[in-house]
């Protein structure tokens, strides 16, 4: 089925390779659910698409042809990754499809979902500047507890996320905005904060050890 007005584009804002990012896992879940509701879809990895003229053209064509754009990205230095901003700069100079809508999914490494607030505001301004209708955003903390695996395979911890995304899909297919309940569920901690940072700090040590730099973690190579 590919009825008029039912075309969704997933823009993956993580620079990681396909299959590796939390952004993709979250976005793909939404896309699959929308496909099951009769929507046609396309997924584009922003960083890869900006590497060639053809990729850039395909990105812009994809945007122009879409009724709903879902941008899923990791929080980078309180904002969006550079390639995502580049894509936004290009898209805003273009005419999007009439009545096209934008929804976003942000995920951050820090445990508190509120870190994503500035990035959300930026996305909203981008929608405004590009003639896209802003239909809301979901923000998730503790992205470090997740992986690029299919969301359904990431264990019981993701139950709240799945519920939030299901609510968002229900609303989006009906032409509505992302509901507050979905935003609230998505922002709920996956595990207690202290546990997340303890496991996280342990993880940095383990990774450094694997690379033989356990004792160098605090190095200051650029010390004046």
């Amino acid at each position, binding site marked *: 089925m590919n009825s008029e007005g039912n075309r969704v584009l997933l823009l993956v804002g993580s620079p990681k390779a396909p299959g590796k990012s939390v952004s993709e896992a979250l976005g793909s879940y939404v896309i699959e659910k929308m496909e099951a509701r009769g929507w046609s879809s396309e997924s584009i990895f922003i960083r890869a698409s900006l590497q060639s003229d053809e990729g850039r053209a395909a990105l812009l064509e994809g945007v122009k042809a879409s009724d709903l754009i879902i941008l899923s990205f990791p929080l*980078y230095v*309180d*904002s969006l*990754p550079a390639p995502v901003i580049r894509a936004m700069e290009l898209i805003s100079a273009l005419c999007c499809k009439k009545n096209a809508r934008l929804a976003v999914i942000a995920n951050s490494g820090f445990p508190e979902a509120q*870190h994503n607030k500035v990035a959300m*505001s930026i996305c909203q*301004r981008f929608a405004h500047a590009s003639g896209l209708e802003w239909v809301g955003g979901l923000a998730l903390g503790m992205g470090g507890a997740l992986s690029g695996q299919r969301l359904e395979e990431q264990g019981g911890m993701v139950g709240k996320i799945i519920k939030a995304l299901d609510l968002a899909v229900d609303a989006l297919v009906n032409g509505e905005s992302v509901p507050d309940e979905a935003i609230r569920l998505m922002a709920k901690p996956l595990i207690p904060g202290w546990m997340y940072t303890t496991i996280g700090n342990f993880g940095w040590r383990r990774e450094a050890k694997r690379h033989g730099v356990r004792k160098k973690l605090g190095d*200051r190579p650029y010390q004046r």
Partner: protein
Amino acid sequence: MKALVLNGIGDRAQHLDRIGERIVQELRSLRWKTENLILRDIEIAPCMGCFGCWVQTPGVCLIDDAAREVTRKIIGSDLIVYLTPITFGGYSSELKKALDRSIGLISPFFTKINGEVHHRKRYAQAPKLLGVGVAHEPDEESARIFKTLIGRNAINMHNSADAACIVYEDQSATEIEEVVQAGLSELGVRS
């Protein structure tokens, strides 16, 4: 004292470079050794999100390009200036490509600041941060986002002080100078 201007003005807006030049002039008149980096002329690959700069070669990005030198210059400065067209309230992609590559300047380890989780310092002292956003026209919401972003970045990157100011494309050199001077005064760079 050393200052570094990270000029994130894009290809299409090169006429705005005059703002960067004014900032440099002002700092030099205060006897600051100032470097003006035009980021659009520097090839910097996007961050790949691998955290290699934390757990593989601590403090140094795995990608061997100009961003390493930019990062070294940032931490070697007493003041950094983010000069950027305000882009949907935030930074331009030209400025952001350098900032994404600079997280090796902080530690991966978590700590709490004002009740919120952030990363620990890597270096004892990080530079002061002045954000100079260039706007086409007055836009309160974008200005609010920009100022908030500078403040949030300063917490994350442990900048020792921060201030944000907005200049307009059509402002005269004198007007721009006044705005920048006020920002520098707020930072204690100018008395």
